């Protein structure tokens, strides 16, 4: 795929009669440099995938605790992405459609989790949602909802580090919706709420879906915050870490390949779903 794109760009560069205004030399150099990065992304993952024989892969896939860990990761990420959507989309809409005092601060707050080391995020969350935490303790006493050693804790950790992606991508999605379309909807008799559901949200769908996809992917892959807040039950990254510590690279790699396969398949499926959203009318 990568090689193919490079060679087709090279063919274009030397093909006689190409558009003389296009800087093919520049394109060629950019592709060359870009392919280093692409290779850097893909080669380790391919090497990992190829390191496992099918038999050992199948063996790992049959291990109950590995499967449970992956299922837990998927479940936590699903809840995290759902919560991020419910909590993040309204904020994204306000940021895209209104101006208010402190908007820059709000935008910075949203990016804050991206700048905090995830282990630090885990410790901070522990202080709030932990056994003695300001939220964790009363919530446990009142409702029995505990964030230590539970799926709820995993979701909280995932949400903290991954929700910014939903807000930022959805905001871009909302900003791309032409406000005049919303105005037209209003003149057609649709109230503000109906206009939001029928026009704005569907047109911003692509941005929202991109955000949800990124949040989901980021949630599955989260290790640092999760491991501090909730070690057991183990999510897949935590389990892989433990396998690595206890049994070494080979054992860990088997589970790693399985997680890679599952998360990659889901990521591609979600991405395809996001892509299928209608494009804006070319104006």
């Amino acid at each position, binding site marked *: 795929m990568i090689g193919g794109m490079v060679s087709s760009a090279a063919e274009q560069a030397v093909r006689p009669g190409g558009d003389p205004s296009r800087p093919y030399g520049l394109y060629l150099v950019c592709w060359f440099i870009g392919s280093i990065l692409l290779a850097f992304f893909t080669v380790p993952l391919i090497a990992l995938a190829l390191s496992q024989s099918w038999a050992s892969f199948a063996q790992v896939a049959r291990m109950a605790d590995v499967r449970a860990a992956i299922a837990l990761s998927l479940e936590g990420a699903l809840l995290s992405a759902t919560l991020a959507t419910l909590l993040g989309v309204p904020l994204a809409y306000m940021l895209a459609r209104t101006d208010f005092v402190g908007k820059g601060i709000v935008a910075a707050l949203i990016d804050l989790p991206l700048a905090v080391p995830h282990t630090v995020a885990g410790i901070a969350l522990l202080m709030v949602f932990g056994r003695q935490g300001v939220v964790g303790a009363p919530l446990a006493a009142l409702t029995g909802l505990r964030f230590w050693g539970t799926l709820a804790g995993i979701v909280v950790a995932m949400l903290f580090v991954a929700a910014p992606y939903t807000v930022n991508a959805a905001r871009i999605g909302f900003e791309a919706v032409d406000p005049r379309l919303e*105005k037209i909807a209003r*003149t057609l*008799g649709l109230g*503000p709420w109906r206009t939001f559901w*029928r026009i704005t949200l569907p047109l911003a769908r692509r941005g929202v879906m991109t955000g949800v996809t990124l949040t989901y992917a980021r949630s599955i892959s989260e290790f640092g915050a999760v491991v501090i807040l909730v070690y057991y039950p183990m999510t897949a990254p935590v389990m892989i870490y433990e396998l690595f510590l206890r049994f070494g690279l080979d054992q860990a790699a088997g589970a790693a390949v399985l997680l890679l396969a599952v998360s990659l398949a889901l990521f591609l499926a979600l991405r395809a779903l996001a892509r299928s959203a209608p494009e804006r*009318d070319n*104006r």
Partner: protein
Amino acid sequence: MSGARDAAIAVEALTLQLGTFRLDRIDLALGAGEILVVLGPNGAGKSVTLETIAGFHRPERGRVRIGRRDVTTLPPERRNIGFVVQNFGLFPHLTVEGNVAIARRRAAGRLDTSPPGAGDPVALLNYFGVAPLAKRLPADLSPGEKQRVALARALAGAPELFLFDEPFSALDTQTRTQLRGELKSFLRQLNIPAIFVTHDHTDALALADTMVVLRQGRVVQSGTSAAIFARPADSAIARFVGVDNILDGRLVETAGGMATVDVGNDTVLRVVPCSTAVGTAVRLAIRAEEVAIGPAVGAPDVNRLDGAVTALRELGPLTTIEIDCGFALKAYLLAPQARALRLGVGDGVTAHIAPTAIHVMVEPCEDAVRV
């Protein structure tokens, strides 16, 4: 223009501050089925005016009345307005049918002449001849089809007023001309009043029953399009409506049913007298098409200007000619006429302007002029 009292649509003294922009006491009135064109340069406040009428800005003062209803404080969805914007603003994620079906017909909707099937998407699409396109997405439509769908959609909401915000501004001249004609005939059939905003004076000429010129948030002239084109209130409006020749002069005499304006260089032009006092500085607006070009012999003595050709530009059927006769004067020649005269740059030529074709303007013009 209809009086505001008995008008179908009346906008009265609409005043609004929007950032640094101010809309200042805008008055508009439309009779039933009338097309009002709001003409003005970019930044004049045309779109803000429309959006305020539609209910997207709250005016500080003034009223918007549709039929007998004062809608000034109503939200857009309760005003019964059909809104058409640049490129027609179809919802890109909905099919043609979906675009029309999304409109909610309002109980308050009242139409003297109900258009065929208002409120019924299928009937509306049939009426505009776009039923075969029902399942298509807007991206797959031609500009003409988009316009028809946009009109069908606007009608589905049973509007009592159409607002058009430069719907043609992204189109090429040919398509624009075609869609303009089509729009006008639809609006005539529907008999729903429309306010059409544009910065293009050809749009204004083609569509307007009445017209207002907007500048810096104020109405600077209103009247019929013919009146505004023939008698612009000031030189800026004159330029805007396509007057090519604007001369500075001074009114020197009023006598015998004629006024005389000294335009410098020992040249005087006779004009139809106006109420301006002798000695006043004036500006003369002379449309290029009113300047007759001919050979020196046989030309009338009044407003006869001898000069030399400084430029000739062939534009297909027309040739524009520029003459230096003490001041620069632009005129048109039809192709056969240009061939017969066989003029070249530097040739002597005589121009003649009928006194009735010269419009006298007094500047600075402080208040809006009503024609």
